[in-house]
């Protein structure tokens, strides 16, 4: 013990300081009310509850500018936006823009509006908010299918329309005040899952902001899938479409025969 080298002592000291520095930042602990959502025949949409706590390492210091942002994002897929134009008095789908990587679901809930939570550059860098998501290179086409170049503001109108459409379908949402603190550390958020959600792997990401800077992030998976008879029918229709179609038609023919047999009896 006497021969304890000074360099070791120095090293231990460094570790302690580093560890203290690491724990000084606040940390998140979160969980979801469900990690799986089953779409069954009675599915009419649901709500997931996300709850968590901020483990403050600086006890006593009142958290003033502390914000929580929750982002729940669904599987990406290509999406096409079409604009109607009047052709000979009739409204016809005319120009279209296809985006290769559009989230099928995107919900933001935050303690305060995003604008006051963090500066726009931070939000952009973190891809928080549907406007900041990277959706890939847009591909514009005219009515006859030929590629065409659009002015940025024209293309932006398509992108805005996509957001507007999906907001109408409740697939995209932004709820300032959707995260509420229960006391100093505990918080909860409810996120609305409408009936028309796409199936697949979702992620629920929680960001902890302190004075407009991200202090901690935590991400949990959420799986939404058809279950039971819904899953069975959907899979049969897609993996054995010929058999499925034949069964559907034979079933209908049988029903028709049954009806005529019943009619003859009465």
């Amino acid at each position, binding site marked *: 013990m006497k021969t304890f080298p000074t360099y070791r002592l120095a090293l231990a000291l460094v570790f302690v300081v580093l560890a203290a520095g690491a724990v000084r930042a606040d940390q998140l602990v979160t969980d979801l009310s469900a990690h799986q959502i089953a*779409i*069954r*025949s*009675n*599915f*009419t*949409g649901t709500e997931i509850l996300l709850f968590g706590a901020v483990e403050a390492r600086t006890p006593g210091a009142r958290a003033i500018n502390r914000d929580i942002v929750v982002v729940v994002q669904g599987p990406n*897929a*290509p*999406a*096409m*936006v*079409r*604009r*109607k*134009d009047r052709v000979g008095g*009739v*409204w*016809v*789908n005319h120009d279209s823009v*296809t985006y290769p990587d559009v989230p*099928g679901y995107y919900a933001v809930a935050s303690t305060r509006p995003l604008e006051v939570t963090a500066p726009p550059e931070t939000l952009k860098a973190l891809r928080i908010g549907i406007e900041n998501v990277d959706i890939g290179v847009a591909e514009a086409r005219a009515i006859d*299918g030929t590629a065409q170049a659009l002015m940025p503001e024209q293309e932006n*109108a398509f992108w805005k*329309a*996509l957001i*507007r*459409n*999906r907001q*109408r379908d409740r697939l995209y949402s932004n709820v300032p005040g959707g995260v509420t603190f229960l006391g100093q550390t505990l918080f909860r958020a409810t996120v609305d899952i409408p*009936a*028309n959600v*796409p199936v697949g792997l979702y992620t629920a990401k929680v960001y902890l902001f302190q004075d407009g800077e991200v202090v901690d992030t935590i991400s949990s998976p959420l799986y939404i899938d*058809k279950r039971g*008879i*819904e*899953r069975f*029918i*959907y899979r049969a*229709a*897609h993996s054995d*479409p*010929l058999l*499925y*179609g*034949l*069964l*559907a*038609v034979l*079933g*209908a*023919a049988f*029903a*028709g*025969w*049954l*009806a*005529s047999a019943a*009619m*003859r009896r009465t």
Partner: protein
Amino acid sequence: MQIYLPIAEMPVNVLTILAMGGAVGFLSGMFGVGGGFLMTPLLIFLGIPPAVAVGTQSTQVVASSVTGALAHFTRKSIDFKMGGILLIGGVVGSISGIYLFRVLTRIGQIDLVISLVYVLFLSVIGAMMMVESVRAIRAARGGVIPARRGGHHSWIHGLPFKMRFRRSKLYISVIPPILVGFFVGMLSAIMGVGGGFIMIPAMIYLLRMPTNVVIGTSFFQIVFVTALTGVMHAYTNFAVDIVLGFLLVIGGVIGAQYGVRAAEKLPSEQLRALLAAILLLIGLRLGFDLVTTPDDLYSVVDVAPHR
């Protein structure tokens, strides 16, 4: 009571669908029509994707036309030979229709074409039926018997490939029935209808078949053509929703029973005028939607993988 449709991927109210099936079944029993041309627009108004509405509706038409064909089979009022010729045209028409449906879906014009075809047929047929039934009602009141169709020879008799149809007492070329079948098969694939409302007038006025075999023969053709259409919509577009189809069939079967009974108590001319008014109204509504500025000019579609 809500139920989630696995293929349409949306929840619907079971009672709404049953009521719609029942109402359309009632009308179809009352007027002796398939009812597909009423059901497909209703399903689309409800928010069911057009492809699923058309594909699923064709299974419902299979059910109702099997019932109809069996009734006529027992009465021996089917011309199988003529039905077979119509069927040949129908099969080719249905396959072409499915192909056209896919192309139109890909270029984003399927909704427009479905609406346009509906507006065209509903208004033309509705107007024709209205004129005819009003004339019949007037004639009945005035005691004047409307002129019967004459037995004069038409251009159809100049066509080659003649064939004898004993049951219909006809000796005509196979080209007109094949074309009629083709046209109806195509409509079946695009509109999700049986096509009886086109085929029956065509058989009476164009082919000059005797009226007692017309309905049975058309049912015979419709059974097979819509069965093919249904299978192909399931195979190529994954667009047949069994749950929705089941609900429609149940509602339709029950509704049709009451429709048949109601028809026996009501005068047929007035009934036809009523059906004509319904057709015109639906046609008008669809046409109105085509020309009024939509709430949002932009629409979003998932780029789903198609076969």
